[in-house]
């Protein structure tokens, strides 16, 4: 199973909006997303920054939140997306 990461920020409304989709995905598809808050955790921020060469080109050149990242395949999704798109990303990755 690939490591699936959701980089999010505590005060990011887009991240908040995606949380129900993430919960539904975990329940229905039996996948687990590692949810890492990046503005209040230096460790998580450094991890996200370490993936900047992979993430930024796919997210308008920036480290946006939320970013959904598969560490094994380098598949990236960023911003608010539909449940189906999130599911496609997760299942493609697993």
């Amino acid at each position, binding site marked *: 199973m690939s490591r699936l990461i959701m980089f999010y*920020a*505590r*005060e*990011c409304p*887009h991240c908040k909006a995606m949380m129900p989709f993430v919960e539904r995905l975990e329940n229905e598809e039996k996948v687990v997303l590692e949810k890492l808050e990046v*503005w209040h955790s230096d460790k998580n921020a450094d991890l996200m*920054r370490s993936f900047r060469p992979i993430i930024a080109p796919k997210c*308008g050149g920036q*480290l946006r*939140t939320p970013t959904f990242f598969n560490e094994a395949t380098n598949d990236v999704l960023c911003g608010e997306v539909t449940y189906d798109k999130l599911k496609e990303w997760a299942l493609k990755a697993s």
Partner: protein
Amino acid sequence: MKKFWRCNVCNDIHYGVKPPELCPTCLAMNAYVEISSEEAGKVMAVTKTTMNREQFARAIAAFTEKNEFEVNPDKPRVEMLLDGVMANEENHGLKYCPCRLATGDFNEDLKLVCPCNFGIHETYRGKPDGECWCSLFVRRRP
């Protein structure tokens, strides 16, 4: 490269690649002389200002008044974003966007300071329902 310029009439400070012809403060013409960052800092330090959460909220509302965008009418959303902006200033030094992580490169990260130059972003430019990345600002609807 941006430099500091001082109006020799009223001590208005300008930071830019060239001096303004007209001083916006005292309306003097061709009054700016290049100065050092140290001098600029001393001149500006005379005026003490604060910018707490309420003051920032008022500042961004005033900022939108003559523009084609407004502060998002969704007040709980705005409160959440202001929480993030102010927390980032306290924890990281500047009012960074709560929805984009700073890279660690100071000059690069100046692009994330709220309000950012969202007019060029794909979430805003050319979109009737455009908004800045975090959605603090939205295009004004008729």
